[in-house]
């Protein structure tokens, strides 16, 4: 029995089949076009089959048909979201991963919401009850989902602002914004009369300010020093200039480097122009420190003098590339001011030679600490 609902799909099935066969004969039986047309044929046939099987749109009388259509369905935007998700996913496959994941999330979210909507709509004859069970089924997920998106947008815009303004301005903005949030929250809690309209106004104004400021700062770009860090790494090995004088690149912004002080094996001090060392865990000065072979090991340098110093590790000699020319191997910290600390991480693959051990020195200060690698 051909039902009214199946007619369109039966037609599509026929069209799909005819065009697929023609395509195969006239164009190419084994390219994408043929697959697409056969795909159309198969999917249309499938839907037509379902439609016939479920007697879709088949009514015995006009009265019955009218009855079936009186309850109009509520407009839903989930199909649009679902379609958008599909488009994003495809776009993501072609462009980049983040878009793909985002698309997938939208796709799945849209599908779930749409399915629940559809189910709730037909759950009973009572619209009110239907909307109630819809909320009970999925409402608990809607709000956290929306909240996550909103918070994400807020955090993103806020971070753009913070990356653009200078460090001092950032602290001031932080103080003002948090104070505002606190005061507003306090007022709303203390004076319930203020809730309602004023909350809405505050939220809208806040959102607008955030959006405008966020977008403007994103367009302005990050603050100067952040751009500089991203462009060149001032701590890179090739920039290390381990002499007494301040280096052109390396000694800029020394205190911006991260201290690794929690995992050190020894601390080297400069005090009164003299260098001395303490092994971690042993509270007395030593002349030599021992570090395990082929393992990255961190040494802390602490300058107690007012003059700026750096710690230099002299790690023997090695051949330059494939030539036979020997070159000194070493590394150093940046210049370090009074009471400041820098960490130096070294990895020494070979045991030290008892006659010529590796050393730690501080240009401009006297003394040296032996580094023994057993």
């Amino acid at each position: 029995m051909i039902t009214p609902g199946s007619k369109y799909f039966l037609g599509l099935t026929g069209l799909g089949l005819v065009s697929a066969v023609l395509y195969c004969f006239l164009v190419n039986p084994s390219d994408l076009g043929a697959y697409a047309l056969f795909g159309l044929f198969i999917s249309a046939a499938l839907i037509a089959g379902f439609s016939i099987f479920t007697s879709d749109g088949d009514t015995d009388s006009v009265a019955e048909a009218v009855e079936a259509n009186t309850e109009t369905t509520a407009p839903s935007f989930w199909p649009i979201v679902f379609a958008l998700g599909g488009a994003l996913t495809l776009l993501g496959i072609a462009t980049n991963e983040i878009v793909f994941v985002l698309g997938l999330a939208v796709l799945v979210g849209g599908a779930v919401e749409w399915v629940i909507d559809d189910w709730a709509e037909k759950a009973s004859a009572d619209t009110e009850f239907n909307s109630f069970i819809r909320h009970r089924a999925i409402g608990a997920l809607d709000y956290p989902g929306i909240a996550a998106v909103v918070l994400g947008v807020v955090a993103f815009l806020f971070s753009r602002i913070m990356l653009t303004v200078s460090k001092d301005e950032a602290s001031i903005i932080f103080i003002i914004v948090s104070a505002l949030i606190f005061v507003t929250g306090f007022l709303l809690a203390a004076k319930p009369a203020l809730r309602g309209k004023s909350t809405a106004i505050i939220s809208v104004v806040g959102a607008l300010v955030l959006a405008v400021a966020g977008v403007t700062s994103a367009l302005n770009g990050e603050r100067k020093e952040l751009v500089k860090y991203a462009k060149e790494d001032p701590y890179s090995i090739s920039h290390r200039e381990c002499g007494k004088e301040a280096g052109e690149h390396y000694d800029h912004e020394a205190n911006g480097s991260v201290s690794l002080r929690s995992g050190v094996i020894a601390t080297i001090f400069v005090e009164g122009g003299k260098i001395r060392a303490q092994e971690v865990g042993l509270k007395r000065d030593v002349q030599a420190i021992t570090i395990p072979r082929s393992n990255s090991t961190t040494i802390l340098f602490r300058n107690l003098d007012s003059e700026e110093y750096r710690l230099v590790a002299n790690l023997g000699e090695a051949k330059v590339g494939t030539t036979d020319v020997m070159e000194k191997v070493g590394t150093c910290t940046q210049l370090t001011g009074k009471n400041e600390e820098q960490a130096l991480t070294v990895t020494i693959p070979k045991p030290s030679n008892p006659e010529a051990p590796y050393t730690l020195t501080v240009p401009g200060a006297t003394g040296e600490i032996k580094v023994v690698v057993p």
Partner: protein
Amino acid sequence: MDTVSPVKSLTRRISTTVAGVAGAVVLAGCAQNAPQDTWKPKGDNAQMIYSLDKLVFPIAGIVGVLVSALAGYIFVKFRDKGQAIPAQSHGKPIVEIVLTIVPALILTVVGVFTFRTIMDLAETQDTEMIINVTGQQWWWEYDYPAQADQGITQPIITSGQLVIPEDTNVLLRETSRDVIHSFWIPALNGKKDAVPGRIHLLRMQADQPGIYAGQCTEFCGLSHANMRMEAIALSKEDFAKWVANQQKPYTAPAEGTLAKEGEGVFINQCARCHQVNGIKDANGKAIISAPDENVYSGAAPNLTTLMTRNTFAGAMFDMVNQKCRADVWDAKSEDFGAKYLAGVTEDCLNEKNLRAWLRNAPAMKPMYADPAKLEKTNGLYRGMPNLGLTEDDIDKLVAYLLTLK
């Protein structure tokens, strides 16, 4: 049997099983030979933990038994027998106050003692000696920085067995070359993770000479269960002897001996991974091993004094035969030092283990040592590979290795 109803026999079967399992668990707690028993402290630090346990366990036990008994009583007594639902009341202030205050008091007492113990165990002011402990898949390396006041004039490096002087506050400085491991000698202290890139401090002190077993307690891959270690405590005089022996210069085997040929095989086959301090090639040039080019962690055990240790490969295998092993492990505290310092003699050598190791190490201890499957580690082994040695070479190597003591 047909007089027993099926229900009864099932109940009986279940109860016998439960009783059997419970009995086995109880009996397992009574093992005679349990070297890793946490409740047999042999040093100050383990003693601190034990004292805390002695306080906390009874409290926790009493609370546990009381709560379970009460819960069981309520389950049985007030189960649904079709009775009417009793009148409902809303709380009883006195009960609520008591049930808040009593646990709070118990937790405060337990907390105070626990924090004190934690702080005491983190103390480093009283350190007398430091030792660097480095974990890697699947063995421990120990290196002793020079400490003249402890008689260590040059650094010492060894593996598997950590040797310490008795009654001395030793501070281990743990780190790792690959993944996270955890160092644990239950008789001497609790566990402490060894984390790559960090130095963690762990106190060690042993009251008496003896051998104390332990094992890695942070899952670290294939042979984690085989990553064992032993702490050896020696009297101060014996420790000085041990140090002197570790620091004495290398003596090459005499020309024309089997051991000398073994040295040659060693130089060809083993020296690229294993360091023997002082070994020289035919031209008299010192041979420096390059484990960093062959092994993923960048290290292989230093074999300079291999035969002073009586276990090998992460303390997994005995280097000595059963009789000699029992001699050392069961020795009285006074005799222990001399027996341990005797090292591995020709009579004591467990040739079977050592030969099997040289013949095919990965067959003895699971390691990532299949040359065909090293893409992930850029051609580096994790563990010791099968070197395909001939029995002839193995004879020579055993003769040579026996001289390393």
